């Protein structure tokens, strides 16, 4: 049977639909058969392209209308000899190749638009939901010389070393505790020691401490007058006593106190800050920092 122009061809172009069955093409079609149905404009007439039409036959005599109509009404292509009946009852026309390409392009473009949008939304939501903000980072480490609470106390100085060994045992001084803490130094406890003889009204040593081995400051006061030997000795012995754990430093401290007992001076020896003043005539020892 000779192929008729305007009738649908199979996707491989080897068969054409005669309205009831697929027929082999004896003469090659003039062009890609699948393109014909799409390139033609729709034929005039009320029945053109209407999906409710049941008849596969074209209503209009023109070849273009017949072609388009046939495209819509031709059953799916089943190659002859494949065992299946030629006209499929479903009435669904085989999609031309160009239509398949267009769908493929549309699907691809749609995917390229939808996939990143969806991925972005999902990824962003997951990122926001699962990322815990660092709202409480640890404090940075402290430099080596950052002032610490341990530096509040005179190094290696104990209450026993000052009050008992130096003042009470060696010089027969008497000591009394303060009941209240010191608002200036913040020490929890205080002690004042005085000589047991007549000089008790002119000499004193005050000790502020938080515990037996936590001495904050030691202050000696001597009202016997500047350049008196008793005051110089008191300051020298105090310096010697506070630096007693280190033989070298205790001599250095003792010498410095004897030399500066009658003037305003300050030094730091072995972590102990010594400061003398003539008025009031006193020497105070605090931690050096």
């Amino acid at each position, binding site marked *: 049977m000779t192929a008729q122009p305007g009738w649908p061809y199979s*996707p*491989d172009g*080897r068969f054409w639909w005669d309205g009831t069955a697929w027929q*082999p093409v004896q003469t090659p079609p003039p062009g890609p058969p699948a393109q014909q149905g799409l390139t033609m404009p729709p034929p005039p007439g009320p029945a053109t392209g209407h999906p409710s039409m049941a008849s596969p036959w074209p209503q209009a005599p023109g070849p273009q209308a017949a072609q388009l109509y046939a495209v819509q009404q031709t059953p799916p292509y089943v*190659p*002859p*000899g*494949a065992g299946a009946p030629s006209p499929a009852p479903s009435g669904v026309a085989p999609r031309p190749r160009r239509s*398949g390409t267009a769908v*493929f392009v549309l*699907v*691809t473009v749609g*995917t*390229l638009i*939808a*996939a*990143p*949008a*969806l*991925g*972005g*939304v*999902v*990824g*962003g*939501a*997951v*990122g*926001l939901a699962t*990322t815990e*903000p*660092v*709202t*409480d*980072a*640890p*404090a*940075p480490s*402290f*430099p*080596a*010389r*950052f*002032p*610490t*609470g*341990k*530096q*509040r106390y005179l190094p290696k100085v104990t209450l026993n070393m000052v009050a008992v060994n130096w003042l009470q045992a060696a010089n027969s001084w008497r000591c009394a505790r303060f009941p209240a803490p010191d608002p200036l*130094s*913040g020490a929890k406890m205080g002690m004042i020691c005085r000589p047991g003889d007549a000089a008790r009204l002119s000499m004193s040593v005050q000790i502020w401490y938080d515990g037996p081995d936590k001495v*904050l*400051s030691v202050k000696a006061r001597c009202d016997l007058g500047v350049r008196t030997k008793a005051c110089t000795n008191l300051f020298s012995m105090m310096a010697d006593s506070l630096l007693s754990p280190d033989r070298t430093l205790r001599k250095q401290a003792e010498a410095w106190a004897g030399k500066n007992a009658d003037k305003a001076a*300050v030094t*730091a020896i072995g972590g102990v*800050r010594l400061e003398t003043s003539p008025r009031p005539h006193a020497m105070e020892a*605090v*931690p*050096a*920092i």
Partner: protein
Amino acid sequence: MPYSVFVTVESTQSGRRSRRIAVGTIGLVVFLLAGLGAYAVAYNDRKQDTKYCGHDCVPGLKITTVVEALKGQGHTCADERRSWSCELKVGKVRFEADLFRAGNVVDFYDYISKVEARIINPDSTTAAAGLDYMSWFAALPHRDDPPTVKKVGGWLAEQVGAGEDVTYVLGWEYRLRRNEKTRSIELTMKRRYW
């Protein structure tokens, strides 16, 4: 002929299948790439929110964390509602720090908007400790940025022995003042936007 038709139809169907697989694969890859990108953006955005905490406070560091760290160093701290005050007395020298809350930003009330660090009665023996004390506070906003920390520390080292000076480092204003009457030196650190 049936065989050739079958092969043709088969090759057409397999071509469609491979197209579908290709489109699906591309879609999946694009989906994953976009998802990863969006995740990274969201992650960084989340971190950045915290990092700059409204551009009004020391980033990501709670005021109580700093207070606890100072307490661990033996400093005594008290909550003054609008700020925390910490101090340490070593002999005659007093180290004082006022850490002000970011009160104007609700979400960052527990963070530090301003620091005033003072050293009262400093003398020649306290220079090193005083510099380390102030440097620690000055480095808080830039603690993850060693070059900037070094820059701030260098400026402090220069100015501790000099008079009043002010500098700006990455949105923070540093002002160092010396008060002869109170025998103190004070560092003020706060946010600046210009």
